[in-house]
């Protein structure tokens, strides 16, 4: 992999020490600093992530955002299990957005696996962010919380704390450590019949140095991990009390409605706000470089006044850009032949020259918006030389840095309050949360709290989008019908870098990308580049199978002879779905497979054509090998969620560009799967016991190809451009 300058910067910082706050590096001081600065009387931080109180309650501090993926519960389970804590006595707390709770395990996990992850790279571009600050992060992304923070941070913290508590009890009783054991938040010594609650030992334990290498449990010893435990965030989400950023309601607060330059990169030339200022409740107009805000005493009043404002935006070179011109540009750049290496294996050119049969196909996908249900918003209150912030974010520390930077404050003077995240999916990473920047600049003009709220249209038209991408394939077969050459040219360097790689045993591969920049802002969208490439790869592999005259399941199995984990996942999905056996009249099954974020996923979609010519997806059967399931019920719900997210994109998702701007604005023209078209979903977890894989994203990529592959079997038509809504499958000519 190419070592870019950005990666080099982080690597240097890591090697230099002091930035990568792994457990060992923080050992001498972090929990002591927490005790000095944060603990109330009687409370003790035993390690960085755990606090034990005299009443024997344990608080686990989670350095990730809870956005429905169940991370508050899963990470607390991991710490509590290793600690041998009584789950009924465990509190889950959001780690404060301070350096003490920066999450080095995340950086280490990614540094080990991939190098600097894509969602961090943008941060380094922001000049105000030094590398040290970037590494001080609490980012939730890359399906990383459980497999990195949990597996390496939380479990270690729990195990270390357990050893420290046990040592304290043994010393107090003057018995060997080896005669003591822990269970349900107590240390016991059977020979003397003594036992002590963790709460009685915590004060002593906090004085010890945590052990450098605490012994972790074997899976057979787990008491919480692997069990379907109810999520701690759910009760507040059924009675309306869960606090989201948009719910900040503070005395004297004002509300800002904003209109932002419709063409990305354009700026405000002039504003006529005379009418708006006359309206009830309007306090002020705030002009930013690329936006104008009306600040009023109620969001509705602000947004109504905003409709009366006349804003002239400057013309730009991008005013004529359209989806058509972008795809034409992609084709020109792909035709130019100038490409960069992704994978080169064997001699693809020679194999292609020797091939007796070659098939070619061009695939395309459109831009996609995130459309999280909670519209973008951020409340900032500047007062007394400090700032307080309320917003749903995938990175509390990053948000603090952003507000401090734009608000001309020290980071220590910015407090980011806990909020649940009303949908993340990559939208709420701070380097792509333009609302935070606007809210900070607007609130800076006031000494009362100001809540900046984006309408649904603002969000859909000023998102950071999953890019539109074109991908071209050629495959060559030898005289025996075996595929010997795989050639792929696609637009844009991938995050994650392996998104266009294939697991299949094809000896000669040439996979290369072509740069073709547009003015449409790019952002991480659930599963990032896998979201498009799995559709491309698994559709084209299906084309190969049919060309070879083989069952698409069997074809994949044969090309995966040396990949037992992939084969197992495929087999489990096929068995559960009844592949080749249980297909109802008028329906067909399509299969797709992908490894992403460390998890291997196979999906089988059962599809029919409705009388109006649209595809109807009845059922999706999914097998996933994520190593081990920490909370199996959360695994299932994340898989269900990922499939519906991917299916929404496959069936309906399409952001189009005209006159340099996004044409869609709200749900009628950017439609979502709803209950009525939500398929039955059957999830099977394959417990391989291998290294933990991610869960938030891996179920999203395969479903589009699975549906398309079923549609091919059903109709004989190969769909190479999403979304499926653009076709009428009852017509002989596929293009609607």
């Amino acid at each position: 992999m190419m070592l870019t300058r950005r990666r080099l910067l982080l690597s240097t910082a890591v090697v230099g020490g002091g930035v990568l706050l792994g457990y060992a590096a923080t050992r001498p001081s972090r929990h002591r600093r927490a005790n000095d600065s944060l603990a109330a009387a009687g409370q003790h931080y035993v390690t960085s992530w755990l606090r034990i109180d005299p009443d024997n309650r344990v608080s686990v501090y989670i350095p990730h955002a809870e956005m429905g993926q169940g991370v508050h519960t899963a990470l607390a389970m991991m710490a509590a299990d290793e600690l041998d804590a009584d789950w009924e006595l465990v509190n889950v707390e959001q780690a404060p957005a301070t350096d003490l709770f920066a999450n080095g395990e995340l950086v280490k996990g990614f540094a080990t696996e991939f190098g600097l992850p894509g969602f961090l790279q943008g941060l380094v571009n922001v000049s105000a962010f030094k590398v040290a600050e970037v590494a001080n992060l609490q980012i939730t992304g890359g399906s990383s919380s459980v497999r990195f923070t949990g597996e390496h941070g939380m479990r270690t913290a729990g195990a270390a704390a357990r050893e420290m508590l046990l040592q304290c009890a043994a010393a107090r009783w003057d018995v060997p450590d080896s005669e003591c054991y822990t269970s349900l938040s107590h240390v016991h010594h059977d020979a003397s019949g003594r036992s002590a609650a963790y709460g009685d030992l915590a004060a002593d334990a906090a004085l010890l140095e945590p052990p450098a290498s605490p012994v972790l449990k074997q899976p057979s010893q787990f008491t919480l991990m692997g069990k379907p435990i109810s999520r701690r965030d759910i009760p507040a989400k059924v009675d309306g009390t869960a606090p989201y950023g948009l719910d900040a309601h503070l005395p004297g607060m004002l509300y800002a409605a904003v209109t932002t330059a419709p063409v990305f990169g354009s700026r405000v030339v002039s504003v006529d706000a005379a009418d708006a200022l006359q309206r009830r409740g309007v306090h002020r107009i705030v002009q930013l470089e690329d936006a104008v805000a009306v600040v009023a005493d109620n969001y509705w009043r602000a947004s109504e006044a905003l409709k009366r404002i006349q804003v002239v935006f400057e013309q730009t070179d991008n005013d004529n850009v359209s989806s058509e011109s972008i795809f034409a540009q992609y084709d020109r750049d792909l035709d130019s032949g100038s490409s960069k290496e992704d994978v080169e294996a064997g001699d693809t050119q020679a194999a292609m020259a020797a091939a007796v049969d070659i098939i070619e196909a061009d695939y395309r996908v459109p831009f996609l918006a995130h459309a999280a249900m909670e519209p973008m918003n951020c409340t900032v209150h500047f007062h007394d030389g400090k700032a307080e912030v309320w917003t749903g974010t995938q990175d509390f520390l990053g948000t603090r840095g952003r507000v401090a930077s734009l608000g001309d404050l020290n980071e220590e003077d910015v407090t980011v309050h806990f909020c649940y995240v009303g949908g993340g999916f990559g939208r709420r990473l701070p380097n792509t949360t333009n609302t935070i920047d606007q809210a900070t600049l607007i609130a800076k003009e006031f000494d009362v709290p100001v809540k900046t709220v984006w309408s649904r249209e603002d969000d859909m038209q000023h998102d950071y989008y999953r890019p539109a991408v074109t991908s071209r394939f050629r495959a060559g077969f030898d005289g025996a019908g075996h595929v010997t050459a795989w050639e792929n040219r696609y637009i844009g360097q991938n995050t994650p870098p392996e998104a266009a790689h294939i697991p299949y045993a094809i000896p000669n591969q040439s996979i290369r990308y072509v740069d073709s920049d547009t003015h449409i802002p790019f952002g991480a969208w659930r599963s990032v580049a896998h979201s498009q490439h799995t559709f491309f790869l698994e559709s084209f592999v299906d084309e190969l199978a049919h060309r070879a005259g083989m069952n698409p399941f069997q074809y994949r199995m044969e090309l995966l002879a040396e990949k037992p984990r992939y084969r197992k996942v495929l087999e489990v999905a096929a068995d559960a779905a009844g592949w080749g056996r249980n297909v109802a009249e008028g329906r067909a099954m399509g299969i797709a497979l992908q490894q992403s974020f460390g998890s291997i996923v196979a999906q089988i979609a059962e599809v029919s054509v409705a009388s109006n010519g649209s595809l109807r997806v009845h059922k999706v059967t999914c097998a996933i090998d994520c190593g081990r399931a920490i909370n199996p019920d959360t695994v299932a719900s994340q898989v269900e969620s990922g499939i519906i997210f991917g299916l929404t994109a496959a069936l309906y998702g399409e952001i189009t560009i005209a006159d340099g701007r996004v044409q869609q604005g709200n749900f009628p023209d950017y439609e979502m799967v709803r209950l009525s078209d939500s398929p039955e979903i059957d999830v099977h977890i394959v417990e391989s016991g291998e290294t933990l894989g991610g869960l938030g994203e891996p179920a999203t990529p395969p479903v589009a190809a699975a549906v398309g592959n079923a549609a091919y079997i059903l109709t004989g038509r190969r769909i190479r451009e999403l979304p499926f809504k653009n076709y009428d499958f009852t017509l002989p000519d596929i293009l609607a």
Partner: protein
Amino acid sequence: MAAFWLNGEQQELDIEPEMPLLWALRDELGLTGTKFGCGIAACGACTVHVNGAAVRSCVTPVSAVEGMQVTTIEGLTQAVGTVEPGALTDVQRAWIDQQVPQCGYCQSGLIMAVSALLTENPSPSDEDIDRTVTNVCRCGSYPRVRKAIRSLASA
């Protein structure tokens, strides 16, 4: 001036009659359990009950609920006659049993929509559910929503 009954108590607000109920609830009264999602009645996050029926409050001007009974998620337990403080309705309990919410943002609206449906039709068919509960859940909690409704319908 707008006057209506909110979760059993009379409210009088000095606001414009055309202000949507959603913003009267959220910004004027600080009842934030009712959510803003789309502003055009396309997603259902803002669903409340008006005289017991599910209504999308983002497009309902306060003048349209003059003198009526408005129930929000905060008043749901009281409205269905569960008097014990902190008690949950059957729908809310089913939501916990089936672990329905993910990010949770749309769930107030979903719970309000489903509660109104089950009051009117205690044993809805799948078609009834599909036709009535048209809320958007971006996390895709739909399979569990359906399971939760079925658990209540068969109870």
